């Protein structure tokens, strides 16, 4: 399955990565190189195999009490914001 330039543009848009037009063709070539190498997985018989979801057998996800353990700390949450005002993140205008 080869990745054409339109697919690269579409995937870049989905990933919210601005990709300059001159990078589209080289990126398609790089991705095709990697995907061609990955294609060898098609040789493996995976009939009836359960997909692996846990690295340690029988180690289920632990449940904890449904209680508040942390929070109510807006200064620390906002400490690294590129822009913040009155306890809020300031973001570009979304609705005209």
């Amino acid at each position, binding site marked *: 399955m080869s990745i054409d330039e339109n697919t690269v543009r579409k995937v870049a848009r989905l990933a919210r*990565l601005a990709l300059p037009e001159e990078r589209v063709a080289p990126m398609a070539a790089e991705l095709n190189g990697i995907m061609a190498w990955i294609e060898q997985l098609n040789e493996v018989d995976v009939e009836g195999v359960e997909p692996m979801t846990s690295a340690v057998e029988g180690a289920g996800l632990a449940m904890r009490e449904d209680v508040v353990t942390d929070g109510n700390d807006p200064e620390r949450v906002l400490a690294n*914001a590129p822009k913040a005002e009155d306890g809020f993140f300031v973001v570009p205008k979304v609705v005209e």
Partner: protein
Amino acid sequence: MTDLTALTLASALDGMEKKRFSSAEITDAFLAAIEKANPHLNAYVVVTAEQARAAAKASDARRAKGQAGPLEGAPLGIKDLFCTEGVRATACSNILGEFTPTYESTVTANLWRDGALMLGKLNMDEFAMGSSNETSRFGPVVSPWRRGNEDAKLTPGGSSGGSASAVAADLCLGATATDTGGSIRQPAAFTGTVGIKPTYGRCSRWGIVAFASSLDQAGPITKTVEDAAMLLQSMAGHDPKDSTSLPDGLPDFRTACAKPIKGMTIGIPEEYRVDGMPAEIEALWAQGIEWAKEAGAKIKKISLKHTKYALPTYYIVAPAEASSNLARYDGMRYGARVAGKDLVATYEQSRARGFGAEVQRRILIGTYVLSAGYYDAYYLRAQKVRQRIAEDFREAFKDVDAILTPATPSAAFALGERSGDPVQMYLNDIFTVTANLAGLPGLALPVAVDAQGLPLGLQVIGRALDEETVFAVSAALEKAAKFSTKPARWWT
């Protein structure tokens, strides 16, 4: 006076306990060594000299009061992937800007609880994506090792290149690192140091910048197997803040290092003999087998027949998880924001400027394999092949107690030598990535130098939760190998 920076963690702790020197003295010795070496090696991206001196003074006071913790006064380096309260953490990516965490990762908090202190933050590949430490926003790390008398700059490996270089050059007693496909073990092998990736879930991932969550594990890089056991003891443990963290009940890893391996069975996987592997690595592996026999272990050939599919599996699973994890970097709540004409353009510009080329490549692969219509063909199939790889190990561990392999398919290479072709770079992790996919503990230790004087390592892989056997076998090999070569300090 002895060079305090050359001590192992165990001997430094012993020296402080016997009042031969203080934490303040050894901390000053490391800070002086860093000042000299770092302009050449670029191992540290932040040096927290003042905090380190203050922490050492406080540590000496605790020891004087008889309140010494197990790592009391030990100066360590911390990979920049770990969140450290009040000290910049960037995963060596531009997208994190000057991000300064307001909280501490669980692993580093555990180390401070036990009395250790931080010298600074260590360089790494951007978001831990790389095998040569060339993708860092702060530039590559240089290995303290050189080929013979050449002055070509060599890679310390990656992604934990700063950790490996700093430990090898005596710029800390030990360092934290992380391993998603080999990022602890490959740099350890390249720099003549010891690195262990424990069983998935031993170390909490809370406060560690996420790359591929089902593969990421923290572990130490140190000078000896015993030091690795001591650091891991402190780093590991259950954490309610990480849902994949294993329940409590850590064995004593340091005691395990002294366990005899007589009567154990060590597996030798045929599939780890790859085309183009240098004869020196073949010979080293054979030598490791001899040492294990001499220590009383039995040797058994085993087959891990899906080994060749491990890297392609990894390059679906890891980018897929990375593309999801890295979606959070949108320039809104933290990190660097680059304004565009509207909100979407601001996202796209912030991410295009903030992420480096390799990270962007992996985000695109991950987004592609997870996109509509391709999920079953790629991600789901990869998770099934991953199960096959794990089954191979489960089958093998019915007959053997540990598995012995080379750690890397080559010695360290020069910076720039392999950065042209991504797939060639990915092949560095061919022997290490299987343990990540199967969630198993793996330790790399140095055993010899090649004809050019560069270190080569072996890897010991154990059953899930059985780091004790990994430490026992590794300590026995370390004892037999008597590896003591150190890089010449050409930067002083």
